[in-house]
């Protein structure tokens, strides 16, 4: 059971990081800077990835306990609820017929639709982790693998997004509604 939990936590964190990386790559390949709602979804998704990362970091110190799993799942659910609200809001903004949506679709759906699906799946994953505690009483000796690599990947993703949003907003407090360029580099 402890290995299953470790696999689930690592998969949870890396899937969220992969979605964030796909959004980041799409930003530069398609040349479409993210809108304010997109950036807020990214923040919520990075906070959601903080959930499994927190559990892994706690497990690396004190073993994979029920407490560590519950705290991480709680963080993931809170952040995913906010992220789902933001992404559903953006889906509803573009729900009318003949609306082209914001940005280019990836695999048939826009990024905010993928984000809504990812947040819903993350809430389900956190719920499953909590339900699974019925059959797992914790293990204080078990240290999951790849903990620091996962935390470092999240840290790199956070710093990269922070630099990207600074480049996009320049010295302005808010982002433009429909950004088309990076204000820090434009005159």
């Amino acid at each position, binding site marked *: 059971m402890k290995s299953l939990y470790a696999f689930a936590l690592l998969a949870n964190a890396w899937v969220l990081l992969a979605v964030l990386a796909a959004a980041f790559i799409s930003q530069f390949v398609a040349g479409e800077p993210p809108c*304010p709602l997109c950036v*807020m979804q990214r*923040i919520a998704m990075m906070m959601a990835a903080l959930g499994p*990362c927190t559990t892994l970091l706690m497990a690396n110190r004190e073993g994979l306990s029920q407490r560590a799993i519950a705290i991480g799942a709680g963080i993931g659910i809170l952040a995913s609820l906010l992220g789902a609200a933001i992404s559903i*809001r953006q889906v509803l903004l573009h729900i009318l017929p003949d609306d082209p949506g914001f940005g280019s679709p990836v695999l048939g759906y826009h990024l905010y639709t993928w984000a809504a699906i990812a947040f819903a799946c993350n809430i389900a994953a956190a719920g499953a982790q909590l339900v699974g505690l019925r059959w797992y009483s914790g293990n204080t000796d078990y240290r999951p693998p790849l903990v620091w690599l996962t*935390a470092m990947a999240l840290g790199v993703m956070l710093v990269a997004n922070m630099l990207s*949003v600074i480049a996009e*907003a320049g010295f302005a407090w808010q*982002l433009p*509604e429909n950004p088309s360029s990076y204000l820090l580099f434009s005159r």
Partner: protein
Amino acid sequence: MLYALLMLGVVISLIGFARDRVWAMPVFLLVLMATTYAFVSDITNPLKISL
């Protein structure tokens, strides 16, 4: 700058969780509330609402 500060808060929270600091969870909750406030103020901004 607002969103960069929110992301900085997540970075600080991640560092706090990694180093097992008691302030990590309050920082996380503060960033969560600030992001919620940014979202709500964005969707209720009368300059952006169009019918």
